[in-house]
């Protein structure tokens, strides 16, 4: 019988309310254990809910595929999963895409990293300069604003014209895509720095490039990590588009080939690989930067 029931009963019956029993004395260790258990429970629940979401989608997918007999254009999840496994273990007798899947992935990854890296090397310092120095801003801001509305994908035809069907063409469009989020985040970050921090830097003897490197850059890091995240996502998206149109290797090329061969299973498999690699790349690069900066300093990411 629960306490509440007892209380209610004793009230109804007019008897004295039973004294509340004092809980056993609790030490800080008890509290710590309690907190740990609570956290573990919450984490488990979070994972469970995520799994239910994904599981639900898989079930829906399977039902759609089988019930409407769409196997040819919407192969059931098990078939795709098998294919992912087959591709990654390279046991495939009907491989139609030249070198194995790792070579394609590595190619795409390399191009994406070069394009993204160049965009970061140019975009972040430029953003900081435009954000802090009026003369640089006045010269460059109009140019950058003029180019910004042109989507990366619109550069593909021109890139092919300039660089042919080559690595360079793909890297170029990746660069054009990743540049803007990196640039704009650095610029916004540099503009919002508390003036007093700049004053402190100058009063303690930092000026010119030292001020940029020692004060402005670190103070902008929370914004820059956001730019890295968006830029990296954009780069990875654009690599697929670029390779579909302007390349004869890479995961995007594989995707396009699978369409020509009318093999939806391979198409979806390639998409899953894109998702996995993209996720891992973000984890590797952005999380690494955050761990070493904003998380260590406990400043909020923008």
């Amino acid at each position, binding site marked *: 019988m629960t306490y509440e029931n007892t209380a209610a009963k004793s009230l109804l019956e007019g008897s004295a309310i039973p004294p509340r029993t004092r809980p056993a004395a609790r030490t800080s260790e008890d509290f710590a254990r309690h907190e740990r258990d609570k956290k573990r429970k919450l984490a488990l629940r979070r994972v469970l809910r995520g799994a239910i979401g994904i599981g639900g989608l898989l079930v829906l997918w399977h039902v759609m595929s089988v019930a409407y007999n769409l196997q040819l254009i919407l192969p059931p999840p098990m078939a795709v999963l098998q294919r992912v496994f087959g591709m990654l273990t390279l046991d495939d007798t009907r491989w139609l895409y030249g070198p194995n899947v790792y070579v394609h992935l590595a190619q795409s990854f390399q191009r994406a990293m070069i394009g993204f890296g160049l965009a970061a090397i140019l975009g972040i310092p430029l953003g900081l300069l435009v954000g802090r120095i009026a003369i640089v801003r006045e010269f460059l801001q109009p140019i950058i604003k003029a180019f910004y509305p042109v989507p990366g994908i619109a550069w593909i035809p021109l890139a092919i014209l300039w660089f042919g069907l080559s690595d360079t063409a793909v890297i170029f469009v990746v660069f054009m895509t990743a540049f803007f989020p990196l640039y704009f985040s650095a610029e916004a970050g540099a503009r919002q720095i508390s003036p007093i921090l700049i004053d402190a830097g*100058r009063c303690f*003897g930092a000026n010119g490039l030292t001020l940029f490197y020692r004060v402005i850059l670190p103070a902008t890091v929370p914004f820059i990590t956001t730019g890295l995240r968006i830029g990296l996502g954009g780069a990875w998206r654009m690599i697929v588009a670029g390779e579909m149109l302007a390349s004869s290797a890479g995961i995007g090329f594989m995707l396009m080939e699978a369409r020509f061969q009318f093999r939806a299973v391979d198409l979806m498999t390639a998409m899953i690989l894109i998702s996995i690699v993209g996720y891992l790349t973000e984890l590797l690069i952005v999380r690494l930067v955050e761990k070493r900066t904003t998380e260590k300093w406990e400043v909020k990411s923008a």
Partner: protein
Amino acid sequence: MQTAHQGGGPAPTAPAVIRARGIDHYYEGQTGWIHALSHLDLDIPREEFLCIIGPSGCGKSTFLKIVAGLVEPSAGEILLDGKKITGPGPDRGIVFQEPALFAWRTVIGNVEFGLQMQKMPKAQARERAQQVLDIVGLGHVTNLYPYQLSGGMRHRVAVARAWALTSAKLLLMDEPFSAIDAINRMTLQDYLIDTWMKEKRTVLYVTHDIDEAVYLADRILLMRPSPGRIGRYFHVDMERPRDRNSAEFAALKAEITEEMHKSADDGYESDDASAHAGVAA
């Protein structure tokens, strides 16, 4: 014993670290151009702890920013050891109203910052930073990041960062503890005066807290507002550490308070009046 001299301070005997002459400053406010400082002449002798007090709008913070080189005066010039101040620099250490610490540096990293900018050898900079942190009672938290500190500790780091700067001939403090609760403020004042006793520096300290000024200063300058100008100097000759409950302390506080209210009541005075009240002969 005399605790406060009337009127204009006597000419300082030691050579002045700061020599301000004919400072005028205007800035554009909400309602038009504001005359922030008018004909300001001021000397600060070496190793003096000077407090500037006055009601808000008397230009005391503006004056400090001009000395820091962060604001250029509309007219007049300030000499630091005979050299005209043209911008901020490591020959002055500064403590702002907020700690303004670098979140990406540890406590000792913050204190070392100015020394590193001066290209001081690493080991030497570390040693100096550690020494100052020990004085302000933070020797045990040198490797923490600012977010891990309490508000009062952050302010102490800010003081240590300025104090560590061996190249600084003058330390500027702009109401450094005004955002701190009264009890912690007293502790911080004790740390500050203790540090100053151990290592005499020339300090220009701006505050609106009369109690704080009487507790800390060798000399107090009361400024008058609209436009900001020299009001009156008070010399504080009490032994340190001072007893806030002593009659002497209370008497000086009362005198300054009265003078401050008087200056608030007069409103605008002619420039002549402020000139003869303030300038050292």
